[in-house]
């Protein structure tokens, strides 16, 4: 068959289903009737109980939980690889009441975690969903261990959390969660399909979601690759499709200042088309303009890189960040992400160009930084034996830098940061070199916004606020849990807890009969 024949055949198939938009691209005007007409085929190429779209924390948790609930499960991902942003993230999970906290004598409580997240979220959070997430962290942490995840044997203090409650995989990567989950999923017979892109929902005449039209053999990002097929879902479709942090055009519609000058920590597939398909069938978008910048990244490398890990485990808890022009601190290095990113981005010259601040600590502060050697190899993290040398590398005034370090050490001795009110549990005296440093500038990291769901992870309709039958969503694809700013390590918590919630509830649904073609 020729390519033209194939494409025309595909397009005809979609047009017949009434979803012109999916095939012809978003630049084409679509009539109201084309959107409203439910896409109702009589039969499907393949049918399972549950289809999960996306294979990050939420998707894999949903898939495993649904499978363990007895459902047949297919996971589709448009990318050539599984795991989305999750498998390239830092692998840190906030857990209230973990056994590691108890061993370390750290008192924590679900309510304290809720309070911390509400504070960072500036009160905009969906409190019911927030409570569901925090309440599920301790049990989900154990569940992950049971599925092969290995945590480092200590608890960390991430910015915005009032205490140490962050666990991190031994790999310092979300891959330490995703790879074990994929392994178990395959062993348990979850059908894992990469290079399969969701095109549109298929609904029955009552509007229930009964499947998906997909593009199988899709080669990201080539739009017309692959073949159109129809997959049926007897119990439901779980959307674990993440955010749109790397969709510059769509994120600029929400926040015009987040233009292409800003890098992102996200993988190339973090785009908006799945969100748009949910909205097309009535999902309610919440907080889409709440887009988070990660305050720990470096302009001297791409994406999350090596500096982000260095900052979260070394500089921020055990070091300081200074303005290179003054050698002085200018914010609380353990504030929430929004406060820190906003502070860093005030450092500009008179032409509004960035003046990258420098974060640094000493060898003791960097002792646990696994990416230190890699960062130095790629010249992102630099080493200096003395503060004078550090000042010279970054063009800072040495006398002022030394005075700042002396003032900081006084604050550490008094356990009180009078200037910026930083929590001092993890602060150390910065008296001896060698020093390790990186330049810093925020990058687009996480979409707090997404579709509105209830505590059963059902996607709620824009008009009725009632569940859209057969449609569930979990993880970053949902909106409202984090309000205006997500705290670090709370995306893993959210993804795993809400993914499992969706998987458990969807698998328990009574399935409908669907015909194979």
């Amino acid at each position, binding site marked *: *068959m*020729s*390519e*033209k*024949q*194939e494409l*025309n055949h595909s397009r005809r198939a979609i047009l017949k289903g009434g979803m012109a938009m999916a095939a012809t691209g978003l630049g084409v005007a679509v009539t109201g009737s084309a959107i409203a007409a439910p896409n109702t085929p009589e039969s499907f190429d393949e049918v399972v109980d549950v289809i999960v779209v996306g294979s990050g924390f939420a998707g894999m948790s949903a898939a495993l939980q649904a499978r363990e609930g007895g459902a047949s499960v297919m996971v589709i991902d448009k990318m*050539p*690889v*599984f*795991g989305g942003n999750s*498998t*390239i993230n830092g692998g840190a999970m906030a857990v209230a009441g973990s056994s590691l906290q108890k061993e370390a004598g750290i008192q924590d409580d679900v309510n304290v975690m809720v309070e911390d997240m509400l504070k960072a979220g500036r009160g905009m959070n969906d409190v019911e969903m927030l409570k569901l997430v925090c309440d599920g962290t301790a049990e989900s942490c154990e569940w992950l261990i049971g599925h092969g995840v290995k945590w480092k044997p200590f608890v960390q203090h991430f910015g915005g959390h009032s205490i140490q409650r962050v666990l991190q995989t031994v*790999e310092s*990567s979300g*891959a330490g969660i*995703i*790879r074990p989950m*994929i392994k178990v999923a395959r062993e348990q017979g979850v059908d894992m399909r*990469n*290079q399969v892109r969701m095109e549109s929902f298929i609904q029955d005449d009552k509007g229930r979601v009964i499947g998906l039209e997909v593009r199988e*053999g899709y*080669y990201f990002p*080539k739009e017309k*690759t692959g073949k159109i097929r129809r997959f049926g879902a007897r119990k439901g479709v779980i959307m674990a499709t993440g955010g749109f942090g790397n969709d510059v055009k769509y994120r600029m519609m929400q926040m015009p200042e987040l233009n292409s000058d800003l890098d992102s920590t996200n*993988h*190339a597939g973090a785009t908006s088309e799945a969100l748009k398909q949910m909205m097309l069938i009535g999902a309610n978008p919440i907080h889409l303009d709440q887009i988070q910048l990660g305050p720990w990244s470096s302009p001297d*490398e*791409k*994406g*999350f*890189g090596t500096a982000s890990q260095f900052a979260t485990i070394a500089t921020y808890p055990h070091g300081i960040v200074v303005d290179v022009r003054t050698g002085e601190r200018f914010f609380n290095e353990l504030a929430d992400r929004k406060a820190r990113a906003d502070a860093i981005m005030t450092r500009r010259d008179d032409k509004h160009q960035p003046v990258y601040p420098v974060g640094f600590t000493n060898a003791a502060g960097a002792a646990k930084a696994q990416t230190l*050697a*890699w960062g130095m*190899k*790629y010249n992102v993290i630099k080493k200096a034996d003395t503060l004078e040398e550090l000042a010279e590398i970054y063009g800072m005034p040495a006398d002022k830098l030394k005075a700042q370090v002396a003032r900081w050490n006084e604050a550490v001795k008094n356990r009180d940061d009078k200037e910026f009110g930083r929590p001092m549990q993890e602060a150390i005296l910065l008296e001896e070199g060698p020093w390790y440093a990186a330049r810093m500038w925020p990058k687009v990291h996480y979409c707090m916004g997404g579709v509105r769901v209830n505590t059963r992870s059902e996607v709620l309709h824009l008009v009725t606020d009632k569940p859209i039958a057969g449609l569930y969503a979990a993880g970053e694809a949902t909106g409202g849990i984090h309000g205006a700013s997500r705290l670090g390590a709370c995306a893993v918590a959210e993804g795993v807890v809400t993914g499992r919630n969706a998987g458990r509830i969807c698998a328990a649904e009574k399935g409908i009969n669907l015909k194979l073609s």
Partner: protein
Amino acid sequence: MFKKLSALMLMLALAPAAANAFGVKDYHKEVMTGDNGKVECAACHGDAKRKTIPDATACEACHGTPADVAEMTKRADPHDIKVEPNPHDSLHYGTDLPCTYCHMEHKESKVYCNQCHEFTYPDMKR
């Protein structure tokens, strides 16, 4: 529709050519050239239409499974920063990434990892 099809068929009729006209890589020329001296598109593309990116299983016929390839490029010490990590068995993706996202036959190959990383693989045939 008919016009487009006939144009395409004409192209197909004219298509068979020497290996270099297709930009086939030097090291693949011999194995991809048929007895008639023409490139055997089917060696990689099978029955699929022109310009369809081949399924990575086509590579396996000669190169072995992803696990075999991963073993061939295994690092003595995966934590040794002096050596770039094994691209065929990544921390993030295991052996899941299909060959065709890095290795291109008709254009320059690229390293998928380097969307984020800065790995140098000087021995990779581009």
